[in-house]
């Protein structure tokens, strides 16, 4: 009789214990839930705060890269043209080009941006789009600098290369595309690296004519959040992007390192 009794008790205890465990478990689960919800809430709020800053900043990076690449795409060919114009024997070509370069290099880019954006509406009652005005100002400014770098590169190629090309029957076009420009490319890489990196940072100036690039987005975020964190983030972004530019130039220099200009 004892055994079954004890057995009953044990069963009862087992049932009770299970119930208690369950209820404790339930209790814990509830707390966990509450903590989780709270954490989630804080996380969501923080993320919202940061995302509200990150969204425009990411868009700003897009604008930055658009200005960077479009400026390069137009100002490099234009710069080459300007360089040849500057080297022209005819004063009627070289003098206006020198003056253009003097103006572009002698006045602040920030001022040029404003002139290109506001002047047409004063003069011709045409209002260019902010972005078009921005790209135009960057292109004509950077072409003036690129032209000087390219001119130095072209003039640095020994006269003998020109003479040999002529003697071998290359046309002037062939001489430049096959012989001169490839060697100029190697020569101008270090100063070009300078300009590319400066251009990437100079995109920030377009904020003056209301382009929502990285710096504008950063300033807005900093004001809204009453924090310098966005500036820190922007600094890191500029640095990271320019590190990529620097690496690209290093790779290009290595690629062209197989020969030496004699």
């Amino acid at each position, binding site marked *: 009789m004892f055994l079954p009794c004890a057995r009953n008790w044990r069963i009862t205890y087992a049932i009770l214990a299970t119930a208690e465990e369950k209820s404790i478990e339930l209790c814990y689960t509830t707390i966990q839930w509450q903590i989780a919800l709270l954490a989630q809430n804080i996380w969501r709020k923080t993320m919202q705060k940061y995302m509200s800053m990150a969204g425009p900043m990411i868009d700003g990076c897009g604008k930055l890269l658009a200005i960077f690449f479009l400026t390069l795409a137009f100002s490099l060919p234009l710069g080459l043209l300007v360089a040849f114009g500057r080297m022209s024997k005819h004063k009627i070509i070289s003098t206006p080009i020198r003056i253009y370069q003097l103006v572009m290099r002698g006045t602040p880019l920030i001022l040029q941006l404003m002139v290109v954006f506001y002047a047409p509406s004063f003069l011709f009652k045409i209002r260019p789009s902010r972005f078009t005005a921005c790209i135009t100002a960057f292109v004509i400014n950077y072409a003036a600098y690129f032209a000087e770098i390219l001119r130095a590169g072209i003039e640095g190629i020994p006269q*003998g290369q020109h003479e*040999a090309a*002529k*003697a*071998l*029957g290359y046309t002037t076009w062939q001489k430049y595309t096959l*012989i001169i420009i490839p060697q100029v490319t190697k020569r101008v890489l270090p100063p070009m690296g300078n300009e590319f990196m400066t251009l990437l940072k100079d995109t920030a100036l377009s904020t003056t004519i209301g382009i929502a690039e990285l710096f504008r987005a950063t300033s807005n975020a900093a004001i809204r959040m009453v924090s310098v964190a966005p500036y820190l983030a922007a600094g890191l972004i500029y640095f990271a992007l320019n590190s990529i530019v620097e690496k690209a130039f290093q790779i290009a220099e290595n690629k062209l390192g197989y*020969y030496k*200009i*004699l």
Partner: protein
Amino acid sequence: MVVLDAKNVTKTFDGAIALDSVSLSVAEGEAVAIIGPSGSGKSTLLRCFAQLVSIDSGEITICSKPMVTSPSGKAVYSPKDQLHEIQLMTGMVFQSFNLFSHFSVLENITNAQIHVLKRSKAEAEHIAISLLDKVSLADKANAYPFQLSGGQAQRVSIARALALSPKVLFFDEPTSALDPELSGEILRVIKDLAQESRTMIVVTHEMAFAREISDRIVFMEEGRAAIEGTPAQIFENTSSPRLRRFLEGMDFSSNDKS
């Protein structure tokens, strides 16, 4: 057949007379050496023939094609396409080699063949390799100019000129930029070319070499072709004190090299 015919070629640089009515005629297969003191206009004359310098007056005809004429005393150059055609008939070897730095040795020799003469890459390379063989540089085909010695670079530049099969070759002091011990290899290559009866004009300071390879020597002085004659006539000439003085001042020790 006359390959190059120049009459009364005159050139001034900012009023200073570089060439004073120089006339020269070179027949096919002939090797002509031009000697003379520095500044006598030797190189300028060659550069006029190679269309690197434009003349003020006179006439130059290459392979019966007029490059420049002077109907009214002032030089008038032929149309551009004819000048280009003439350019391809002439080949130039420079004192400073002027190899294209960014091309390998092989590309230096093939590039103009491919882009100027429109030869196929395979054909151009075939020609380049046989020419490199000829100047004993087949093993340097993939080297770049900065990896070559002066003598090697000059041999490549000779191969580069030969690759376009010019009718006449101009050598502008081909050994002047080289150490004396390296000039021998260049002189040997040029001697071989002379023996193949290639038409050539060589401006040189190597008297022994000029004597050995040339059929005719022109002594230039103060922009004029002062004396012209066979090597024997020039080197045994006693009538001109200027020529004697010039030859006596030259170093003949290069005799044993070439």
